[in-house]
């Protein structure tokens, strides 16, 4: 149609050129423009064309993945997404295939990880375990990346590899910005998830051009497969709900309505790939979790070996009030546990990240960089972040310490006061925290997650008190069992011993540290529960004034925090004075410290309403600690 229209519009124009004999130049320009418009229209039409397996057959594995994901092939060769009546357009198919392959890759890796977790170690695999891994790899070899193939070569003989490597590697990833998000739209916490379809902006780009696809081996798909006969792929490692299916959305761009197909694949969901701890409408229970039940869960849970080791410790040694909450949350919501200093930012041990998509991640740093400043009499130790983002936030490059450089090799490794440490030629050290110490911090983060989840986070100080009580009680039980506290790094040991032997000072110090601008966890104006209530009630009187005051307060705190951080760097001798002056001169916005006003009335009222929950949980933790101290028969300020 487009070509016919183009011809019809061109005839009078050519006639005009020839008969009327007006300038040839104008004729040629017009002709060229007409042709170009026609080509563009043709491309648009091609992009909107439906994909047909008859015209472009898919590879064996891609066909299998499509069927697994409940796509249906129509008799005319077009492909219907699950629960959607609009066939897949040609331009979208490569992206769908890529997503399916990526999901399958992750599923394979998780399954292999599970087999290895259950085994006695990779070097001591039984025949059955080895064969299971081989089978998984063989079936999915075409979609494995070059690195994965290299990692798993040891499972096959050379002859097998020669044959398997004939299958070309999967094509490179398509541009990420062109991929549509297949997750549900962001859900504000703690409201229940909204099933509203994603709204695309009016300026949404048209469907991306079809990338060059290497010719896959031809395969004949069955003409139509009833949905009931589809192979139902269950989550391999954990029970998890299927992701919602997004329907096609019509986006109006001016006078033209463009059909944009938002493809959502109901792929086989493994907990590791698609369980971002979305908050459910119904909260997890608070019942006791039996050790055997949790062990069964851990066997199939989507966590790595270290994560599972920490969770086992938590299940075994956490105080009952924390254990009940944390295990139920874990078994229901699968919050992610990751070892990622980059995402931990300026946090020394761990950080809870709750994204706008209502997913939760407990990020552990795993260690830190130790920089010792030697002085005439003694010296001092400085702990630095492994994440370059922390330095960038202060407007500085990462310091030139060897421990921060990936290419530098340590001259010595030793098990010192800070645990396992790699020592470099310039004296800098990279220290790693023990699994036991990290398990304590993970427990505290999971308690913070529970606070957010169950809405007892109205008082930040109450949350911190409860989370840290759980952490210290956990360490105390573990130390009693092991008869040693060597697994704690000096800083954690200091805090723990202060809580143990000088609790009055501990609580004062905790409050004064958490309200300091650099930590910023607790607002000094609303530290206690009574203070939160008083502050909120006064703020409700004049919301505009409150919002302005809040913005001003946060801005001031951010400026103080930045100045304090730069002052610490200045004292460390890691940077030239000019470099620090430059960082100080940077405007606040460039350092990512800009603040936004609070949304006043609703937030304050919600906070006021949630205070009784905070108070109840705090009282429970206080009672537990009080009983524990009474049973222990120790007095505060008493140290052996």
């Amino acid at each position, binding site marked *: 149609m487009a070509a016919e229209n183009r011809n019809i519009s061109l005839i009078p124009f050519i006639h005009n050129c020839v008969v009327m004999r007006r300038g040839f130049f104008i004729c040629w320009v017009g002709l060229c423009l007409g042709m170009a418009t026609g080509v563009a229209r043709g491309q648009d039409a091609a992009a909107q064309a439906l994909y047909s397996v008859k015209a472009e057959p898919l590879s064996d594995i891609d066909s299998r993945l499509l069927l697994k994901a409940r796509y249906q092939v129509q008799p005319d060769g077009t492909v219907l997404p699950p629960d959607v009546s609009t066939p897949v357009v040609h331009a979208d198919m490569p992206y769908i295939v890529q997503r399916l392959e990526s999901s399958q890759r992750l599923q394979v890796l998780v399954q292999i990880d599970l087999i290895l977790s259950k085994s006695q170690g990779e070097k001591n695999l039984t025949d059955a375990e080895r064969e299971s891994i081989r089978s998984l790899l063989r079936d999915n070899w075409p979609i494995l990346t070059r690195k994965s193939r290299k990692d798993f070569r040891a499972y096959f003989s050379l002859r097998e590899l020669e044959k398997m490597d004939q299958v070309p590697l999967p094509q490179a990833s398509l541009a990420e910005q062109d991929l549509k998000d297949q997750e549900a739209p962001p859900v504000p916490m703690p409201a229940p998830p909204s099933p509203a379809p994603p709204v695309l902006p009016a300026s949404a780009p048209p469907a991306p051009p079809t990338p060059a696809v290497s010719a896959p081996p031809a395969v004949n798909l069955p003409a139509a497969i009833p949905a009931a006969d589809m192979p139902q792929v269950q989550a391999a490692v954990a029970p998890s709900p299927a992701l919602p299916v997004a329907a096609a959305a019509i986006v109006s761009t001016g006078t033209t309505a463009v059909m944009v197909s938002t493809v959502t694949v109901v792929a086989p969901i493994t907990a590791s790939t698609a369980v971002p701890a979305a908050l459910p409408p119904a909260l997890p229970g608070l019942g006791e979790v039996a050790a055997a039940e949790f062990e069964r869960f851990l066997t199939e849970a989507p966590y790595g070996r270290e994560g599972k080791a920490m969770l086992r410790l938590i299940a075994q040694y956490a105080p009952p009030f924390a254990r009940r909450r944390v295990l139920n949350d874990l078994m229901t919501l699968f919050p992610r546990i990751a070892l990622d200093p980059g995402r931990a930012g*300026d*946090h*020394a041990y761990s950080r809870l990240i709750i994204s706008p998509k209502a997913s939760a991640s407990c990020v552990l740093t795993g260690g*830190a960089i130790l920089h010792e400043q030697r002085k005439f009499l003694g010296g*001092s*130790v*400085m*702990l*630095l*972040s492994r994440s370059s983002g*922390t330095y960038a936030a202060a407007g500085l490059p990462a310091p030139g310490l060897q421990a921060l450089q990936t290419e530098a090799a340590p001259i010595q490794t030793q098990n010192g006061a800070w645990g396992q440490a790699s020592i470099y030629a310039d004296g800098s050290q990279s220290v790693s925290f023990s699994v036991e110490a990290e398990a304590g911090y993970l427990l505290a983060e999971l308690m913070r997650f529970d606070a957010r989840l169950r809405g007892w986070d109205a008082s930040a100080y109450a949350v911190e*008190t409860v989370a840290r009580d759980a952490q210290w009680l956990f360490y105390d039980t573990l130390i009693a069992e092991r008869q040693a506290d060597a697994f704690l790094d*000096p*800083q954690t040991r*200091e*805090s723990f*011993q202060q809580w143990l032997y*000088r*609790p*009055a*000072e501990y*609580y*004062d*110090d*905790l*409050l*004064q*540290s*958490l*309200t*300091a*601008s*650099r*930590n910023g966890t607790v607002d*000094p104006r609303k*530290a*206690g529960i*009574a*203070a939160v209530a*008083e502050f909120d009630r006064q703020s409700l009187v004049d919301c505009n004034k409150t919002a302005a005051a809040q913005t001003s307060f946060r801005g001031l*705190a951010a400026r*103080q925090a930045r*100045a*304090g*951080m730069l*002052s*610490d*760097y200045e*004292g*460390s001798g890691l940077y030239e004075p000019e470099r620090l002056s430059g960082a100080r001169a940077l405007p606040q916005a460039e350092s990512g410290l800009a603040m936004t006003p609070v949304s006043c009335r609703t937030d304050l009222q919600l906070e006021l309403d949630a205070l009784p929950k905070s108070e109840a949980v705090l009282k429970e933790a206080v009672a537990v*600690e*009080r009983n524990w*101290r*009474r049973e222990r028969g*120790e*007095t*505060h*300020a*008493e*140290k052996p």
Partner: protein
Amino acid sequence: MRKSHRVICLAAVILCVGVLRAQEGAGTPGSQPQSRMTTSRLFSCELPSSWNAFEEEDALGAVFHSLGPDDPTASYRTGLSVRWVEPEQTGYMEPKKAVALMRRSDRAVRRNATPVLPMRVAGLLARIFEVTETRVLPLERLPAGEKVIHHYVAVIPDRAGYYVVRLSSAREVYLDFHDDFRRCLQTFQPFAR
């Protein structure tokens, strides 16, 4: 000039000076101390008006906290706490023993204490001392370095129990709060009596 006129002039000058001094004092509202009364009505004392105060119940009993300004590195906020310790409470020990243990040195955190000085607080014989210790601050944030924390401590025995008043700050700025601590003690009024 008559003698009576001289007296009137002198009185006027004294009055003017008094008014001016009073205005001077009122010119710095942020630092003007004001009396704060805890909700448990255990005590009252004067504290800087810009400090945020609240009272709560922790595992050791009722405690009053008042939070002041940040230290120059924004790692530790100056604060004053008042605890009432009595025999029924968890972890109770006699005041003399408590003072000895609070002053005990600790090599791990380089903890040191000054000698104990007696001071009359609200008619009670208080024991006052100072403690310094080294901590890695800011708490659980990076970059973190060793910083010395200074505590002014007063233990005020009253009947069977005693008060522990503690003002903690970074050592860099502890002298700035000496007067605040003294003023609190000078105006301290126990209500439990």
